[in-house]
């Protein structure tokens, strides 16, 4: 099982790493990160904070674009080109195919996020003449969010078209950054049914703010790796659940 899963993941990694669009997006991201140097020069006060702030935002935005784009094409391309026929006719359970694809893309995103965060780390260190490990921690948070987006894209790809998958995934990304407000709003209601409903909805939707400590990094408040523990647990539970549903849907899919 492990060998098949890793083979699919390795092949997906190879597929995505050879994707020219990935490099185009990465080039844009690195350009934005590089431009933060000049942006800092133009700003008044808090110069290094501008680099961290804009740089991390760049890593986040371009990372999400990559995760959504590659995430939705990952399975659809296999179906469209019918390469899935050959793979699934081999002794490969369908869930291994879905999980292997998500694993492979997560590997690619890990590499790309690392490149972006190391470049930002370098730009900041060169400009500020100081090291800010928080940049790497915040990038790890962004990466975990990207993995969760890949899980969601795999889920939507299992039953709908690429355009709808992209729309749903992007909607989930946007909702994920405000879902926490649901609990606040629900808590203000006098009706317990509304409070519980809001809480249940919050549980069903992803809480992507859990992965976001960019602001704390900007103000130098994040220093310890322990900040990764809770989000990592959440990613395992929520991302794993979404991927499980994707596998479930994919396991009964008819290929026409």
């Amino acid at each position, binding site marked *: 099982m492990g*060998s*098949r899963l890793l*083979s*699919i993941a390795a*092949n997906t990694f*190879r*597929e995505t790493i*050879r994707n020219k669009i990935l490099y185009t997006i990465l080039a844009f991201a690195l350009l934005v990160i590089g431009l933060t140097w000049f942006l800092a020069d133009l700003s008044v006060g808090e110069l290094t904070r501008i680099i961290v702030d804009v740089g991390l935002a760049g890593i986040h935005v371009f990372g999400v674009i990559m995760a959504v784009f590659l995430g939705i094409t990952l399975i659809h391309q296999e179906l469209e*080109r*019918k*390469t*899935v*026929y*050959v*793979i*699934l*006719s*081999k*002794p*490969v*359970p369908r869930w291994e195919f879905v999980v292997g694809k998500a694993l492979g893309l997560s590997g690619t995103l890990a590499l790309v996020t690392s490149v972006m965060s190391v470049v930002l780390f370098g730009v900041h260190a060169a400009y500020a003449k100081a090291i800010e490990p928080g940049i790497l921690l915040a990038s790890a948070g962004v990466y975990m969010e990207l993995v969760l987006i890949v899980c969601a894209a795999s889920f939507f790809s299992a039953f709908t078209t690429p355009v709808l998958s992209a729309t749903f995934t992007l909607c989930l990304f946007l909702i994920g950054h405000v879902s926490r407000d649901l609990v606040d709003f629900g808590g203000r209601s006098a009706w317990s049914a509304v409070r519980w409903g809001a809480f249940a909805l919050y549980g069903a939707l992803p809480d992507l703010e859990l992965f976001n400590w960019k602001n704390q990094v900007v103000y130098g408040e994040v220093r310890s790796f322990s900040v990764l523990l809770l989000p990592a647990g959440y990613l395992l539970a929520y991302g794993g659940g979404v991927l499980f549903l994707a596998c479930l849907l994919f396991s*009964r899919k*008819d*290929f*026409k």
Partner: protein
Amino acid sequence: MTGDAPVIEVRDLAKTYPTGFWRRRVEVLRDVSFSVRRNEIVGFLGPNGAGKTTTIKILNRLAFPDGGTVRLFGAADGYRPEVRRRIGFMPEQPYFYEYLTGEEFLRLCGRLCGMGRQETGERSETLLSRVGLEGAGRMAIRKYSKGMMQRLGLAQALLHDPELIILDEPMSGLDPLGRMDVRNLIRELRGSGKTVFFSSHIISDVEALCDRVILLHRGRKVAEGSLEELLGGGDMQCVEVTFSPIPDPGWLADAGLPPGRWNVEGNVVIVVAQDEEEADRWIGEFRRAGSRVRSCVPVKRRLEDIYVEHVVGGKPPGGARG
């Protein structure tokens, strides 16, 4: 698997697909039953849209039946990895990861089938050479022609040395030499104890290769049997006699030639006699009218006739002249 269990056993297979905005279900297969025994070459024949590919997809767990059962190697759950390991499959117009080379793709297939690195390498080399892709293993698949893709499809289906090989339209996209290669390969496979089940709508390929034929039309099985059974033991159907020069038109009109069974083509007259006695009689008559026999061909029932009878609902060719 029990000793004598068929390699493939399909019972009352039914399948519908939802189509259109209202997801109306269209029937693709109904009550299809057949079996394939060990070491047979079985042809799955039918026009486009007959349900051949759907049946093959169900055999390869790419689609799920609405009703009926599929047993592979006697196992009710033919989807288990240990059963899949015994099956090789090539889909219709195969398409592979274009960013890989042929060798890399076969390596991936080998790993998915649980083969070791060395074994995969050796088998890949042998098979690439066997299917005529010698020297193309290190070429990116995106540079492969349609025929090369088809050949790579065959190589991946045979890589793990499966007992049962299922091929969906294996000859499509190949030039005449390529088709001959594939025919020889299929015969070799049977010679080495394998079972081959392949779909085609090229009747001559099926007729040349198969021990048994299953004919599908509009989602239903309309005929099944060995070529001998289907063709009635190869009995003569009629005798086609060609005469020249063409006798006088007045003679032709008064000779009492069988209506609908004679024809003038260029400078010859062709008469289709129902049996040898009738052929002898017409040979005598035409000789007396100054014509000579140019050819006399006993026409046997062909698979094409069976196909036309079931699919088009028309009469087989050979008896419809004049």
